[in-house]
């Protein structure tokens, strides 16, 4: 082998090592704080695992408990309904907003910024804000409704499941709709204008152009926006912790809230891990569905 060939091989090996070193810190972090805990969740779910003292192998005991855990299935059902209604509400508002802010123009870009602003505020801040608005005596909603004559005597929103539920839905729409709006707007803008114009020439009216041309062509964006919103709602915690504390009478208990309670209030770590497994399977299925819906763009472009 010639000298230059050997030299090139040597420098190639060095570049391989350099590449490995570059990704090493990231790999180390993800391994220690994500992949290992992920494996441990599976492992722990088969154990009776108290905070203090030794863990004991308990086979499927946690899963048997879980199947009979009325609170957990109640929480799953509540989370499920919350997710569906939040998704419908968010899309119902996000779509008109996306159409509204889709066109260029300075005023439109200001509207876009305003609609998006609540997204960058944290869920914890938004929840605290709503906790105040929902207060009977010092808040906004009930005193304002009294003032306007919509109701004639004070109602405690926090005392009824419906009051808590719908107030939180309003909060979530306000807080997250800008995000879906931007995604949908990107989708609308990515539809080639020639196609829309051609449909226009062929006599398609505004509604037909939207329903028959734009909507099918932005299927991928629609799927993405929907799945991100669903995954977010399935993991709801902050708002139910800060606003209602899962009340009244545990009627607004979410899945993550119950896992939190079992793991870090009752310190049944093994059982918490088993509950986490259910959540994990559901969310990974949602992601798998997303990958399937978003597969090969070339196929979708037809």
């Amino acid at each position, binding site marked *: 082998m010639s000298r230059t060939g050997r030299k090139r091989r040597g420098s190639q090996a060095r570049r391989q*090592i350099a590449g490995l070193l570059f*990704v090493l810190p990231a*790999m180390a972090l993800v391994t220690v704080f994500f992949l290992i805990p992920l494996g*441990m969740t599976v492992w722990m779910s088969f154990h009776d695992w108290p905070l203090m003292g030794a863990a004991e192998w308990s086979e499927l005991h946690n899963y048997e408990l879980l199947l009979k855990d009325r609170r957990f299935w109640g929480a799953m059902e509540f989370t499920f309904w919350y997710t569906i209604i939040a998704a419908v509400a968010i899309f119902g508002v996000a779509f008109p907003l996306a159409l509204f802010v889709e066109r260029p123009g300075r005023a439109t870009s200001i509207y876009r910024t305003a609609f998006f602003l609540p997204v960058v505020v*944290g869920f914890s*801040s938004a929840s605290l804000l709503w906790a105040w608005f929902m207060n009977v005596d010092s808040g906004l909603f009930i005193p304002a409704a009294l003032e306007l004559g919509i109701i004639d005597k004070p109602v405690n929103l926090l005392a009824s499941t419906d009051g808590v539920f719908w107030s939180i839905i309003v909060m979530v729409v306000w807080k997250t709709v800008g995000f879906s709006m931007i995604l949908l707007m990107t989708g609308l803008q990515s539809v080639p204008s020639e196609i829309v*114009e051609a449909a226009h020439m062929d006599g398609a009216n505004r509604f037909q152009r939207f329903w028959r041309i734009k909507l099918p062509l932005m299927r991928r964006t629609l799927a*993405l926006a929907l799945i991100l919103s669903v995954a977010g709602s399935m993991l709801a915690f902050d708002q139910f912790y800060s606003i209602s504390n899962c009340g009244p009478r545990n009627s607004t208990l979410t899945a993550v809230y119950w896992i*939190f309670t079992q793991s870090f209030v009752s310190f049944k770590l093994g059982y918490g891990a088993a509950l*986490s497994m259910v959540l994990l399977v559901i969310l990974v299925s949602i992601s798998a569905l997303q990958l399937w819906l978003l597969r090969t763009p070339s196929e979708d472009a037809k």
Partner: protein
Amino acid sequence: MSRRTSPFAALARHMIGIMLAITFIAPLAWAFLSSLKPAAEARQPPLPPWPTGTVTIENYVALDGYGAGFWSHAGNSIIVSLATVILTVVISVLAGYGFSRFKFPFKGLCFILIISTIMIPFQSILTPLFLILSKMGLQNSLAGLVLIYVTLQMPFSIFMMRNAFDSVPLEIEEAARVEGASVMTVLVRVMLPLVAPGIVTVAIFAFLAAWNEFLAALIFLTDQDKYTLPILIVAVRSGRYGTVDWGAVQSGVTVMMIPCVLLFLLLQRYYVRGLTAGAVK
């Protein structure tokens, strides 16, 4: 497409736009304006939202009376957020460069492993994380929280940075290498300025995530003096001796919101780029 809009339609459109914009900003403005009222007035319903008499900072002073004092908790939040931003940027720039420009064994697998963690909710690995942090002596420490936040930022940040490096032409780097510059010199002197927009995007997302994060902070910080702002304000909202000081809640929420709103208004372009990166892909 030609858009012929009558002046009347344009007026109606802007009326709707302004009304909607006010609706979206109102809750934020309500908290900010009410927080400037005297403490006694802050207990009344916020109608109107602005202080009718004097403007005071009483509610901010009241907030300081909780926990270990306002600045101590704001300090915790600032330390956690800045450390998360710095570590996220450094680690994801290195990894993004590695994945974009180098060939090494199991490269594809490593990349997929990192990116796929975005599909798994971190809420489902909290219990083992708690044990791992305890083993490492990092439970109940800001450092432990930072490491978790940085890990959670990895899939998005590395994806962003790899794309940023991918879009830089190879010739630029090769020219520098021919002149004998080392790998690190090429990265820092030549490449970094070219991927700066990507870095800004990654930094904004890391900051907002760390500044606003609630669940992990609630679980992993057990000493009151280590609380970050979200945990402190939730404690304020739970009240003392059965009463809640809503004025302190308003000032707390305002303090938490201001950095997010300012950052977004200043760097909106970079933020939206990050947001749509996933949608366009």
